[in-house]
């Protein structure tokens, strides 16, 4: 599955890749905002932990885009 995803990424041009990379960056930004809300309002810490996990995943996704872009 990963190799399929990689080859799909490699077939895209650099502008498309840069555009696509903004989606995980957007998620990272919003998940970070959610963590701030949880901490500022004493909400259950599980919510913050789940958001942090999602940030980590999105960082990996961004890294994948950068890797493909660096080979263009």
């Amino acid at each position, binding site marked *: 599955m990963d190799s399929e995803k990689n080859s799909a990424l490699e077939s895209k*041009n650099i502008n498309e890749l840069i*555009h696509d990379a903004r989606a995980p960056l*957007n998620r990272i930004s919003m998940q970070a905002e959610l963590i701030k809300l949880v901490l500022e309002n004493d909400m259950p810490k599980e919510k913050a932990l789940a958001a942090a996990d999602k940030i980590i995943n999105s960082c990996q996704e961004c890294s994948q885009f950068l890797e493909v872009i660096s080979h263009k």
Partner: protein
Amino acid sequence: MLNILLVDDDEEFTEVACHIIEFLGHDVITACSLEEAYQVLDCNDFDHIFLDFMLPDGSGLHLIDHINKLEKIPYITLITGHPLVKGMLSSLCGPKIGYIAKPLQREDLEQALSNKKTNTARNKSKSSITTKHFGCLIGESTVMKELYTMIERVATTQANVMLMGESGVGKEVVAQAIHIATNQANNSENKLVTTNCGAISKDLITSELFGHEKGAFTGAIAKKEGVFQRAGDGTLFLDEVTEMPIEMQPNLLRVLESKKVTTVGGTKEMDVNCRVISASNRSVAEIAEKKYLREDIYFRLAVFPISIPALRERKEDIPLLANTFLSELNEEYNRNYQWTAVQLKRLVDYDWPGNVRELRHTIHRAFIMSDPKNTAVELAQDFRSPFSSVTEKSHGLTAGQTIEDVEKELIKVTLEDVDGNKSLAAEMLGISTKTLYNRLHAYGEFKED
């Protein structure tokens, strides 16, 4: 508390955005495609819609057309993932449409929602039901519908387009519409770059079009990208292309033919992938006769020529345009001016030699002159511009003309004005229909219908 619809195909984003919007004290429903959004809108009223520009089944702009037909029109905030599209969106954003760019922050959402215009979704007014085709073109006349069809067709191709039309008809707006339609057709967010060939000095035009290397000539203190490079895979709009010096045209021709560009002082050739839309307010006959463009370059630029109708050829659109312009000014300055039927008729009756630009200018002037204490617009008694062609077209008398010539001219003009209706023309001239036929017979111009 506002009712909010969030339309975006990124599920993780919509989930986290919902948490944040709910925390801000609002109700929110999500949709991940245009189709789903249409269904949700059928059953719910919303105060505010956050709308992704690019959705799996089409552009968010399609949804705007749908929303404009709703009884209660919500405020719309477009979400774009591409900063380059921001310029384009800001130009098509009307008073009830805003935009924010990814990556989003909580304060972006707060600002969009705290906009005073969102607090109460306004009731539908005359102007708000005006559809903006491709997000920017107004008009429901037959000639405009033909124009929309041409734009839709050419948007699916890469053909170069030449726009022709009188000054003020909106060539740049049509270029923008083609660009938007192309992005919609390709599901892309490419860029529109505009340059005015008539506004650049002869010495700088090559550098503006193709770019230059640092030190390529005196004053080239830094490397500069040309408009072909800046347009990338998008659209390059060359306004007033016929004002480009003829000796510079071979350089442009070479780029259009080879699809390669070399910067001034550079050695490396770069690919050109953009569509070129050019515009001129000169007629094809004039371009050919006076050689404003070389023949070879004309055929390269005008693969698909589009003639934009003058405003007087689509008079039925004048009330739509007048209401839209007035409504935009009302929104901007928080006024509530309204046209009277008589004023609209005066606007429709005028020939608008300066086209939509002149109409907008006249309305803006009238708006400024109006008394803020009431809702009447102070439309000047004579709003004709010094450029008006009405005077040029007037059939004035000159010494030496015979009475017969003047009478013949008067009959001709009257018949033209009533589309050849002889009974109506006779009535207007104050003569019987029989007398009119007799005169026409005498001039040898009467033909049996």
